[in-house]
């Protein structure tokens, strides 16, 4: 029980600073789940990102994965509820005072102004995860191929992830 309360608190905090779209969760969850609480290993974290891409939902489904690991099924429920609580509450509050918020120029500009820092953080997460988990020409070839496909074609990321899984399976990656 105490574990679930702590989980709720951690995910509520993450939900409160969930700015700039889903990808900011990668540096945040990586730090909190892997480095700080050690609820996940780095491998499990990366696998969780892959799994979250297999669902139609936002990348935030990664929260369900990490919550599940930390506290079982109910951990997943709590993590999902609490990470989405702040944004849903805010959205309801804004929608009900719709007229007042119409010209919230300063707020919007401030939030847009944070985005470059988010970009830097997500790039740093890619760097940190890459330097730890990638080894050898095989991984870098897959990385480059994945990047090119995802960047220049409109193929759904889900199929790219599944394809990469199939390659790993048939070539017996170890």
């Amino acid at each position: 029980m105490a574990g679930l309360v702590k989980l709720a608190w951690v995910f509520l905090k993450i939900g409160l600073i969930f700015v700039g779209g889903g990808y900011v969760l990668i540096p945040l969850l990586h730090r909190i789940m892997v480095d700080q609480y050690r609820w996940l290993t780095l491998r499990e974290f990366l696998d969780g990102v892959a799994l979250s891409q297999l669902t139609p939902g936002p990348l935030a489904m990664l929260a369900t994965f990490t919550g599940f690991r930390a506290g079982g099924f109910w951990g997943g429920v709590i993590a999902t509820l609490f990470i989405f609580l702040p944004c849903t509450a805010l959205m309801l509050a804004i929608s009900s005072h719709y007229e007042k918020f119409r010209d919230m120029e300063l707020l919007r500009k401030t939030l847009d102004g944070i985005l470059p820092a988010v970009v830097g953080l997500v790039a740093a997460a890619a760097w940190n995860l890459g330097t730890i988990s990638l080894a050898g020409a095989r991984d870098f070839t897959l990385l480059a191929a994945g990047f090119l496909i995802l960047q220049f074609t409109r193929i759904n990321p889900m199929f790219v992830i599944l394809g990469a899984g199939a390659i790993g399976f048939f070539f017996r990656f170890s």
Partner: protein
Amino acid sequence: MLAFSLARRERSCYKFCMKQKPRVSLREIFTTFAIIGATGFGGGMAIVSLIERCCVDKKKWLSLDEFMHGLAFSQILGPFSLNICTFIGYYLRGVIGGIIAAFGFISPSFSLISLLTWLYFRFHELPQLESALKGTNPVVIGLILVAVAGMTKSTVKGFNGWAMAILSFSGAVFFKADALIILVLGAIWSLVRCVYLQEHK
């Protein structure tokens, strides 16, 4: 006097439009957003256009203008695909409608990820599955890099933007600074800068 009567006419027209707003049952809100949540593979903008087609074009629950307002608010905190669902649900049926819409949208993905997670922690020591997952790891990093490239193009502009991006990158990589602290510092800097720019226009 004229202005007053105009304002009144506008208000009565507004009321009239409000009456015209369709009364949608909570069950319909839930199923609509659950279907969107179950079929919206591809995330982000793909889902937003799916929602627009369904709620604005097909069901005519709200006008495109209102949808666009909602979309602007959606970018503030959290995933905007979820937020726009909350907004439409609220627009139709108030707070309960918003919550139902959010639940409807998340529940298919929640069920699927729970199942996948359960399977993962049960079977990830199987060598076959481990090989498959090893194949996905580099692609996951590729996916993050693609996101970085896209966000850089749309949000990192001018000296200030690049300085912030480079500083936060080096802070996180070379000095192992806490992501949270970097975000808070970025927010403070951004606020100060916006206020300054507003004052010295």
